[in-house]
């Protein structure tokens, strides 16, 4: 058996502004500077793959894995186009993408690799890689965030990532590209005055960060639905579900909150989680667990249902 494993995971912001225009806001500058600490940790690790789940890459047909070995293009943010374009040249681990696809299919998920010249890789992934892996020393992988998937499907996608990591022998850093509270200001603001959209969002973010700082990732995963309801969590906090699931659904981590700042009203945090033994105490389970995806529950459909496998 190969010794593929997850070395650690980081939650990073979904917005490009700390990467594109840090000088415009003390909050963005702070995040920009804090990325350097995360980068140093990743560089000191033995990682040979950075695997990203990004809430900014939305998919409909199941789950897409980026598999263009050398994407070379640019992307312009839909809102923040006046801050310029993000030109990129990345190194993607195409073999791992294929393995991940196969492992996802083996767990009943719809999955496919994509490799097309000019494919618009999402601004969240590009920003994270520019800040954390600017010279492409470590290969990257990116998986999409299905718009219809809920917790069960996302857990299965996380478990498939764990299967693929084991099978491929890669030593992996996981990145969850996601905001905490994801309520943006809907008008132009002075970036100098950026703040979390509401006190309530801020309080919920801080509660989540308190738990993450204690390494209690699975507790945060269990809390995600409530957090999303209360604080407009980013995409139901699927990035947390995916990370927690891919790492084995425990609270046994050393947690580090590197930074927490507003980006255009959203809660933007840099959090690190390193596996460590028996730090997080017992688990509080409110949510169900699942190992296999059996398709969308379209009970009103008169059409043929997806075949149910064991």
């Amino acid at each position, binding site marked *: 058996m190969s010794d593929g494993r997850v070395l650690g995971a980081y939650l990073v912001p979904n917005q490009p502004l700390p990467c594109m225009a840090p000088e415009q806001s003390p909050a963005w500058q702070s995040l920009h500077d804090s990325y350097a600490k995360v980068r140093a940790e990743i560089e000191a690790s033995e990682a040979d793959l950075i695997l990203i789940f990004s809430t900014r890459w939305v998919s409909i047909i*199941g789950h897409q894995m980026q598999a263009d070995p050398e994407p070379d293009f640019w*992307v312009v943010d839909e809102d923040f186009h006046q801050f310029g374009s993000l030109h990129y040249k990345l190194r993607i681990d195409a073999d791992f993408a294929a393995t991940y696809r196969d492992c996802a299919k083996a767990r009943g998920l719809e999955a496919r690799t994509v490799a097309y010249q000019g494919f618009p890789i999402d601004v969240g992934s590009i920003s994270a890689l520019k800040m954390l892996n600017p010279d492409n020393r470590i290969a990257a992988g990116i998986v999409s965030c299905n718009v219809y998937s809920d917790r069960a499907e996302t857990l299965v996608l996380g478990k498939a990532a764990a299967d693929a990591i084991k099978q491929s022998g890669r030593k992996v850093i996981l990145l969850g590209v996601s905001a905490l509270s994801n309520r943006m200001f809907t*008008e132009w603001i002075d970036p100098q005055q950026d703040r979390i959209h509401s006190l309530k969002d801020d309080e919920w973010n801080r509660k989540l960060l308190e738990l993450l700082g204690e390494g209690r990732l699975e507790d945060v995963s269990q809390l995600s639905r409530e957090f999303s309801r209360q604080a407009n969590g980013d995409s139901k906090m699927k990035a947390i579900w995916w990370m927690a699931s891919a790492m084995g659904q425990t609270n046994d981590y050393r947690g580090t909150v590197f930074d927490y700042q507003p980006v*255009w009203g959203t809660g933007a945090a840099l959090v690190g989680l390193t596996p460590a033994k028996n730090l997080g105490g017992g688990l509080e389970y409110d949510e169900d667990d699942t190992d296999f995806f059996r398709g969308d529950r379209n009970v*009103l*459909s008169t059409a043929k249902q997806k075949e149910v496998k064991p």
Partner: protein
Amino acid sequence: MSEPGRIVTGCLAPHPPHLVYAANPEQNEPRSSGAGAWAPLLEGYARLRESIKDKEYDVILVHTPHWKTCVGHHLLGVPHFEGLSVDPIFPNLFRFHFDLQVDVELAQAIHDEAEKEGLVMNMMRNPEFRVDYGTITSNYLVRPAFDLPIVAISSARTYFDYSDEAGEREMLALGAATKRAVEKTGRKALLLASCSLSHRHFTDEPADPEDPSFEHIYNENQSKWDHHVMNLMQTGQTRRLLEEMPDFIAQANAECRDGSLTWLLGAMDVPNMEAKIHGYGTVIGTGNAIVEWDLAAAEVQA
């Protein structure tokens, strides 16, 4: 300009990239099999093109759900765009080399009029911007030559950030501002609301995406809503359609939640005229109608 401008025709012109794929234009990289899954919609678009071919218009305005903006409503503000638009959702079907002109003067006028309505507006002036597939697809299907300038308006997230009712009010205001801008600049405009009706997708795809045996509506609920909404259009009950819009959005996951249809109705002053349904069909489970409100013909009759 001496003569005041006007909206010649308003259309619901949905944008499944599948339809461009099926038409196999040279600008699109992938080739389709021609197996025919979306024939009713392609035929519907052919009927729409036939219906508008003798109309006089000098600009096409499109409101697109696939340029999603959180900070207000954005308009393309660069006179010429050229490049490759790969759909991040269906990259296997849509990799389109676009080359299009923008009526920046009209876009700016809409921007200014809408600001007067209290809306947050922004001109997009980055020449490297990737024009979204909604804008390209609706334009291609209505006028494949791309020989007229366009105006493209983004879909603000008001419905999602606040409520469906707040979104509706904003889109009606944006529509009214669009109408005034068209009149003031003397344009003869064709308007396209680039959205589907019911909008729940299947999350898998057959080996040949155009396989007709796979294609059908997601479920009966979606189908019933679509036909109800088309009936309201056909019988001129656009007020009632607006009243029911929040229910339609909530119950059928309608893509109207991106605001395009309400913008169009607002720009046309919520006309109580009977609309012409040129086609209806499903694409990967979603319901799509091609509908025309022929304002010019209505004027002649009046």
